[in-house]
């Protein structure tokens, strides 16, 4: 799967892949975070490179659900693979409105719970298991199709994963970026706060996937620093049933094809060595 926020709004995807390549190599497209109203996003700078990683603070720039449905979703659907819309809300009601708007329009939803809850003074949903319970339960009442929750790697992660299972999510995506900070200027101090992604976080998220997949029965989708077939295989061996590629798309737009090819050759090798294959 292509991870949310790492392939724009789908306008340019066909510049780098043929439709055949998309169908043969990409299991699903997870869209950029979509909110009820349009969001201009954060002022620059929005990205900063760290050793083996990238901090981003885009600010969920998106056209809002109405324009997204009108001007972007048709093209994304035309790629011919399942479309999962990532939802961004700052209160439970926004998620519900978005779910309602997307009924019959998308194949699945991915709830981004790494957002501040304005009704709770900006406390992140991912820190508040009570609100996540309510969120998943209420979205499930509206949305009968595939429902994923993208967990934050910080906060009561294991508890939140169990809540997602209890209230009917089909899967948890483990995990979003890690809260991080970069110093841009020393004096006066200027910093960039954002989410860290890339190979730097892979061992951390791999551990979460390993542990969470043992705790819950619903499937786990691994997401964190996958840039090679070997990385993807490690996630699968550690309990993930599928994986998302994110930062690698920013390095090379054709990275997903390369990763799948490498994974196929690695798994072919595994099978030939195993008596059960």
């Amino acid at each position, binding site marked *: 799967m292509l991870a949310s926020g*790492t392939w724009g709004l789908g306008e340019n995807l066909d510049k780098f892949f043929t439709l055949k390549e998309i169908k043969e190599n990409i299991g699903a497209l997870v869209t950029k975070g979509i909110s009820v109203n349009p969001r201009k996003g954060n002022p620059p700078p929005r990205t900063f490179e760290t050793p083996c990683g990238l901090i981003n603070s885009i600010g969920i720039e998106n056209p809002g659900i109405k324009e997204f449905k009108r001007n972007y979703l048709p093209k994304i659907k035309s790629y011919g693979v399942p479309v999962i819309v990532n939802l961004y809300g700052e209160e439970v009601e926004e998620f519900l409105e978005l779910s309602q708007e997307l009924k019959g329009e998308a194949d699945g939803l991915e709830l981004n719970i790494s957002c501040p809850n304005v009704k709770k003074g900006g406390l992140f949903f991912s820190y508040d298991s009570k609100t996540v319970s309510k969120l998943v339960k209420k979205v499930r009442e509206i949305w009968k199709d595939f429902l994923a929750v993208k967990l934050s790697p910080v906060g009561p992660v294991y508890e939140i994963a169990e809540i997602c299972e209890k209230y009917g999510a089909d899967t948890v995506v483990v995990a979003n970026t890690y809260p991080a900070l970069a110093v841009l200027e020393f004096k006066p101090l200027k910093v960039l706060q954002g989410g860290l992604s890339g190979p730097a976080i892979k061992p951390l998220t791999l551990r979460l996937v390993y542990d969470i997949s043992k705790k819950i029965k619903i499937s786990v989708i691994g997401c964190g620093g996958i840039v090679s077939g070997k990385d993807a295989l490690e996630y699968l061996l550690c309990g993930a049933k599928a994986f998302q590629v994110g930062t690698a798309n920013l390095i090379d737009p054709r990275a997903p094809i390369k990763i799948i090819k490498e994974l196929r050759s690695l798994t072919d090798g595994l099978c030939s060595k195993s008596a059960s294959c």
Partner: protein
Amino acid sequence: MYEAKIVINKKEAENIYLLGIEIPKNVLKKFQPGQFLKIKINQRMDPLIPRPFTVHAIEENVVYILYQIVGKGTKSLSKLRKGEILEFLGPLGKPFPKLKNYVICAGGIGIAGFGFLLQKSVNKKIFYSPEMIFYGAKTKEELVRLSFLKRFGIPVKISTDDGSKGYKGIVTDMIEEEFKKDPRTVLACGPKPMLKRVAEIGKKYKAKTYLVMETFLACGTGFCMGCVIPLKRKKHAHLCIDGPTFLAEEIDFEFLS
């Protein structure tokens, strides 16, 4: 990304290098002046993100990039030698606007992208030659590729901060002097304070002003929406797909980092 072999990676001045890479002809044909490519040193996780570079010149099947060491990425690049392989993706971004009766203003390494424009405007088929090139640097040692620039027979007006060559002072002072007599469209690339000053001069003398912008850039393909250029309009622009060249009057300098 495509693989490319390095044919030259030569020091032109302190911290300024000229890199030449062999690129397949069918890819090379697509490049227009003002566009850029991103370069990744093969297989490296650090630096992780490919770095963007404007095309300085194209000769035969070689794309030349003129770059300055400013950080980890360019430092690593400067260590590569002839014969080594790197990966690139391009062309990316939009070409320069097709201008007539205009001048170029370059500050420091900002000169890099204009070489290709000069090459492409020789036959005046798509791009036209500038009437004058204003090129400023800190010292005469940092003025690079002068003999190449002079090849095109266009007046090159030089300035250095320390007066070691040409006019002593900043390049925008020369532009202002010129515009007092004859304001024209200007296409500028250089450090942010220079661009800001060019925008002010353009406004003062009612000269159409285009600025080649720079910002942190990650994907270069419109995927991440990281390279935002704040505009006075409601929506931000993204350098990699809407730029890198913008009309100065549209840019909101207040929010530019």
